[in-house]
């Protein structure tokens, strides 16, 4: 073309030639590598490999203290949304597994009343002197019942022990 000088860098030609050679070679190498990896993974028995790993020895080499020192627990807890976590917990099956009656049986009510204000609450809600007198009368009558009953049994000497309560009430008492 007149008035136009065309300058060609001889290295460009070389680069173009080498790119034409190296690009297919790179693709080929990539495919070969993927194939090899696939073959190796398929050939590996991961379970057997895991079985051969001595996790105890591995964990023995881990300095847990050092890891824990690096952990900012406060920051971790700040990131935990406990409300959301508790909202996901279904408490009903957990509570169903708890035997509340057994728990209550283990409570020492005497000590509880002595050490807390529960005694004052009960005393203030129990009718005061009237309830106290009624308890005393009933307790006395029950005591005399037992006294008379023991003497009667001593005299007549029953061959079999007498039932303490009607069957339905006995069954109700036996239930936890």
């Amino acid at each position, binding site marked *: 073309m007149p008035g136009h000088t065309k300058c060609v860098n001889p290295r460009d030609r070389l680069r173009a030639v080498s790119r034409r050679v190296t690009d297919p070679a790179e693709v080929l190498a990539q495919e070969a590598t993927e194939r090899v990896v696939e073959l190796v993974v398929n050939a590996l028995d991961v379970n057997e490999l895991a079985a051969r790993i001595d996790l105890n020895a591995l964990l023995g080499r881990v300095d847990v203290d050092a890891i824990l020192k690096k952990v900012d627990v406060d920051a971790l807890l700040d990131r935990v949304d406990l409300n959301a976590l508790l909202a996901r917990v279904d408490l009903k099956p957990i509570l169903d597994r708890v035997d509340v009656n057994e728990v209550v049986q283990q409570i*020492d009510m005497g000590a509880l009343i002595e050490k807390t204000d529960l005694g004052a609450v009960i*005393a203030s809600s*129990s009718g005061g002197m009237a309830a106290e007198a009624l*308890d005393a009368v009933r307790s006395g009558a029950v005591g005399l019942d*037992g006294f008379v009953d023991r003497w*009667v049994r001593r005299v007549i000497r029953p061959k079999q022990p007498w039932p303490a309560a*009607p069957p339905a009430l006995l069954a109700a008492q036996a239930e936890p």
Partner: protein
Amino acid sequence: MSARPARGDLVSLQGHYAGAVTRFAGYSIDLVVSTAVFALALGAISWGVRVITGHDVSWNRSNIVVAIIFVLWQFVYFGYCWAVSGRTPGMALLGIRVVRADGTILPPKQAVLRSLVFPLSFLLFGLGFIGILVQHEHRALHDLIAGSAVVYSWDARAAQLRFLARQAEVPAVGIPSPAGARPDPAS
């Protein structure tokens, strides 16, 4: 021998057959209450008649009409109370109640039957009541006929808690508790 059982024993007595002393005490209270109510009713009637008619009415114990009304009133008093709640005021005070022989709630029909056959236990010098002492379920003659039994119904555990609460309050008001005043709850 102490006549008073440990409070721990009382806790386990709810639902057990009631003994003779408690039942007799309950009946005595009922007799006083029912007779007092009857006397009050007669007095009210006398007062009403005198106000309305101006005539004085005197009730004589030997009057057969009064005796019959009194007996009927007794049936109503006991029968109604047993049918409605299984207990009379006297029984409620002593913490006992009437149930069926198996321990379930006494139906009204059975309660009425019990009140009707109740007088039978008074026959032959009250021999019908001997069953409360010697029968293995502490059932009197009228109980056996009506298919009923009497059990403790008061919550001795609540009584024990009240007792402990009162004892716990004593030091709080500055009065020293006497030694040995607190029963051992575990006994």
